């Protein structure tokens, strides 16, 4: 009897390995290791796909201190910070506002809830191209609407003007991804106990004080999660800029972010801003460190427990 049991147990161990192996192999060799190897690559220099000259921290020194590298890097970094903050404001404020509205009981609220997620399912590329067409000065539906409501002086080439290009891109990203904060916020607000709200109402609390003293404190961790998701998403963002202003971050690099810089540095030919694979890996590694530190920072600020 014991023999049979032991045999079974041994058999079980063997299955454990077989069941785990495919996941371990694929995940390790195409996700974990590539990230690690890319970091290693940042210590190498040389032409071609596989740089083979070890150069220590030279790539990093170049990136932070030498023209044109440092110019492009810090420009992309600060643009990314602005991009992130603008998208975050849209996500948190508009998202929270709409969520509070759609979680009230009224006819049609499920319709409104579902609709909010529709743009999020579109490809970023489609959203970007679509708004390019809407904002473009030739067809310019947006400009036509502005003229229609008497704001002629506002009309401008939105994506060609350095002052409005990045805000326009942030708006489109905010527009497209509002579905996510609304989804999270509504789930959190739905989870608030009805009785607490009823009790507050009986005690004479108005809508504002309910939002301020009950809803907001309860959803602070959710705001934290949204902030982290937006942060990680925007600092690896690429598609939206590629679609709307191109991988050079036109006009004059005002819409260049870390994702587009990484793309050009690593994969573009020299005339299009290519810096070689080693420098590209360096940009990727720094981006990874920025994201890691940022996520840690927000986890600390919002005191989110994973």
């Amino acid at each position: 009897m014991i023999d049979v049991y032991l045999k079974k147990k041994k058999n079980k161990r063997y299955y454990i390995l077989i069941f785990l192996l495919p996941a371990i192999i694929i995940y390790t060799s195409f996700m974990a290791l590539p990230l690690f190897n890319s970091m290693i690559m940042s210590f190498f220099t040389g032409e071609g796909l596989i740089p083979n000259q070890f150069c220590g921290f030279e790539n990093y020194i170049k990136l932070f201190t030498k023209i044109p590298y440092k110019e492009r890097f810090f420009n992309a970094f600060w643009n990314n910070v602005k991009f992130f903050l603008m998208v975050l404001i849209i996500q948190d404020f508009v998202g929270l506002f709409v969520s509070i509205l759609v979680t009230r009981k009224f006819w049609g609220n499920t319709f409104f809830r579902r609709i909010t997620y529709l743009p999020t399912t579109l490809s970023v590329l489609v959203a970007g191209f679509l708004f390019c067409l809407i904002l473009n000065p030739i067809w310019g539906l947006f400009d036509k609407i502005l003229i229609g409501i008497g704001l002629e002086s506002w009309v401008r080439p939105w994506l060609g003007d350095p002052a409005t290009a990045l805000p326009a891109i942030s708006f489109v990203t905010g527009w497209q991804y509002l579905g996510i904060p609304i989804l999270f916020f509504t789930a959190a607000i739905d989870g608030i106990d009805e009785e607490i709200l009823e009790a507050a109402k009986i005690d004479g609390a108005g809508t504002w004080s309910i939002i301020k003293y009950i809803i907001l404190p309860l959803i602070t961790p959710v705001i934290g999660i949204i902030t982290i998701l937006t942060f990680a998403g925007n600092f690896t963002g690429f598609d939206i800029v590629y679609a709307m202003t191109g991988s050079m971050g036109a006009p004059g690099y005002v819409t260049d972010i870390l994702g587009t810089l990484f793309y050009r540095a690593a994969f573009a030919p020299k005339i299009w801003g290519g810096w070689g694979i080693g420098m590209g890996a360096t940009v990727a590694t720094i981006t990874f460190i920025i994201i890691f530190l940022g996520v840690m920072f927000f986890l600390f600020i919002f005191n989110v427990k994973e």
Partner: protein
Amino acid sequence: MFKFKKIFSLAFLYIILINYTIIVIYPIFLMIITAFKGNKEIFLSPYGLPQSWNFNNFVKIFKAQDYATYFRNSILIAVISIFLILVISSLASYVIAKYEFPLRNFLYIYFLAGLMIPIKLGTVNILQIMVKLHLFDNIVSLIIVYIAMGIPIGIFILTDFIREIPEELSNAARIDGCSEPRIFFNIIIPLLRPALAAVAIFNFVPIWNEFWFPLILIQSNSMWTVPLATAQLYGQYQTQYGLVFAILTVASLPVIVFYLILSKQFVKGLSAGALKG
């Protein structure tokens, strides 16, 4: 007075939400209706419904471009990678959820770390690997990368789900002499269906829309995915608005239809994930 106030605030609520809905929907609506307009009409009456729904723009791009191939590639990629994500992550999740073995927790966290790791930043090495494996410019490379991307979320959802399946079920089967693989395939998998559906839905939209990896790993026209084709053709037809709108519509209709059909499950699955996360 009180009632009046209530009606007033309800009206206010509807006005805001209807405006919001217009902002959300109108650009998408505009994209679709414009695809059905002739070039003249696009400029003369840009806002409203087309005078007559004509499919010329679609016919033109389908004739000029090999959309059958792009769709075949995208569908193949989505179906194969989602299927393999389901198989691979349910196998691993079952073991992680139900067996005791060394490094179990470490392994679980190792997989979950993938939820936060932006795989894009490893692209330099992925490109090198794919060139070495002779998979550069081949959709197989995309399938592999998407499986790796999908495993963390798959393991996250499925492990949680399998943990809640009572152990008595498997033990009863064991007493009856059922082997471990048979327990997995005949008992666990049928119970897993809703969770598998959630993982599939979760992965479909990102995989269908993914653009970064095709941009870097694919070159030949015959290997283009729908998003890659959209980007290339958008540049090519930039000034022919009717065609461009048709291209964008063709690229997004599958996900829009998918979402409208499955929106209930979609939102449910996502909110469940949201609450847990």
